[in-house]
């Protein structure tokens, strides 16, 4: 079991960021390599740019804690847990923490690398939304 974690401090209100990451059906707008996704109940299927489908189960969507958790249910993984926390540091100041726990270990690096670049895009979209508001 291995853990990878990335953080990003963004000068934007936490609800703006939660509006991006809390929407389960929008992951293809900010996670690299995801072309589209479908959500049926708590099952989310990522349609990857390389033609693969990646099934996931959504575990937590908590707008009070601003926490989103999911697990990849592909047989590639014996265990996976992805957690995105949006933490309020101030009215216009947020910390996004995106952590990945995985077995096999190696896949934590692969997914974790993706989460880093996802944070880049989440930050970009959050700043753009904040500028519009």
């Amino acid at each position, binding site marked *: 079991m291995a853990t990878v974690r990335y953080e990003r401090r963004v000068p934007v209100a936490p609800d703006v960021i939660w509006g991006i990451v809390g929407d389960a059906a929008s992951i293809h707008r900010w996670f*690299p390599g995801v072309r589209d996704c479908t959500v049926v109940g708590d099952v989310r299927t990522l349609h990857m740019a*390389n*033609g693969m489908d990646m099934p996931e189960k959504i575990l937590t969507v908590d707008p009070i804690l601003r926490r989103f958790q999911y697990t990849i249910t592909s047989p590639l993984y014996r265990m996976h847990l992805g957690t995105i926390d949006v933490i309020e540091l101030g009215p216009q100041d947020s910390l996004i923490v995106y952590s990945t726990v995985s077995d096999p*270990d*190696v*896949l934590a690096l*692969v997914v974790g*690398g993706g989460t880093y670049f996802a944070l880049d895009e989440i930050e970009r979209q959050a700043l753009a939304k904040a500028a519009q508001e």
Partner: protein
Amino acid sequence: MGRKILFITTDQQRFDTIGVNGAQYSRTPTIDGLAAAGINYTRAQPSSVVCMPSRATMLTGQFPSTHGAWMNGVALAVDAPSVAATLHDAGYKTSLIGKAHFEPFIDVFGNYTENSLANLGVPTVETNWADGRRGPHRGFDHMEFATHGVAGQLHYAKYMQQNHFDEIGGFYSALDGDLQVNAAGGGETNAPQVKINPVERGHYHTDWVADRTIAWLESLDAEDDFFCWMSFPDPHHPWDPPASELHRVPWRDVELPANYPTAAAEREALLDAKSRHWRMWYDGQLVSNFEAPKTWVPSTLTADQVREVNALNAVEVELIDEAIARVLAVATARGWDDDLDIIFTTDHGEFQGDFGLLFKGPYHVDALMRLPLIWRPAASAQIAPAVVSEPVSLVSLAATFLNIAGRNAPYWVEGQCLPTSSGDAEDRGFDHTITEWDSVLFGVAVHVRSVVTKEYLYTEYGKGAVHDGSEGELYDMSEDPLQRVNRFDDPQYAAVRRDLSQRLRDHHDRPHDRARPGVTVAPV
């Protein structure tokens, strides 16, 4: 019409595996011929002792701390500077055939061009360049990729899957079920990463790389200037060359390396004289490099396993030499001999039993750091053959390619053109090289910087998982060429240590624009 460039690389090849450099078992008449007609560098060093950072240095002319691909699994930024792009701008036809590895192999999300190009069925795609323009990916008009086996989506793997599916099972599986580097033993000694491979020789990746290079060269007009990077995946592990060729070097006839004491106590005493992470790896207490199998413990390595690995390594080197000969014959047939520069090197070395170890890692000694490097200038350049013993670095390659093409090195190139003689090396200050190592893998961080001069090899360990920032190694290579006696704490060497430490600080403080360090997106 200018000078054409054939850049030949292997992967993980020691200096002493080439005939002209004293190889005991591998016969390399083609490479030896290049050395005889050109410049043989006998103290060539990499910028890193693992593939991705070192290869990124070849392409960018920058140290890893500048180009940002600081360890395996960290992709070189797609818009990083590229000597191939500069040559492309100069009108050169550009290709890379074989192992690239600027981008990680394990790519579940399909984010990287190297992994998708074969599926796309095109010779290149347009991506962003360092100067803001778009152009062929990393400057290459044509790319066909291979790596150490037949798994995955690269061109060679697809070739085998589509044409020789029945031979795929004969290759060693580089990764195990957990995607860790496989520790399973094979061959006749149960050595790790060894397998008797019944693949037909002509289908093995060494010959495939030569075949595809020949096909590309034959597609060119005779007058075209070209930069062709022919990149063999061997002799990097796994060691699974075609079984039909194993008769060349019977492993039972192979002597143990000079730096492999047969007595365990002597090996362990040598390791104990070095920084503590050497012995920790040997004992199976620390793995700091993904490419060393996580579950393999070096102290279990036997003398016969060393013999078998080194025999297979020699076979792989001979196949490479013969493949190069086939490519050079095509160049001759096309009438390019007068205008063709050939540079041969590798990205880093391999322990091959030295100190009782295999593979590689944050261990800066000659086994991993002293590389074969040969430049056979075009006859038209009228450069006299030479042996250059001054320290030179692979960071000089990009500037050398540009010099051959008659171009000034852009601001982003850190190295200067390789010297063409010892006098030239002295005149232009080739008196030391720097090798970097940084790794952070599941809570284990290791940071290493080394400087090599003609006389000394000096290493400092930064603060990390097992180092407190005060440790190091210093070897006096004139009296200790095997780097067995660590003089780091020897008061007699205090002045030497101060001088070499200052060179490391100067390297750290060098003024140069640095890329943002990349993010680890895969183990390799």
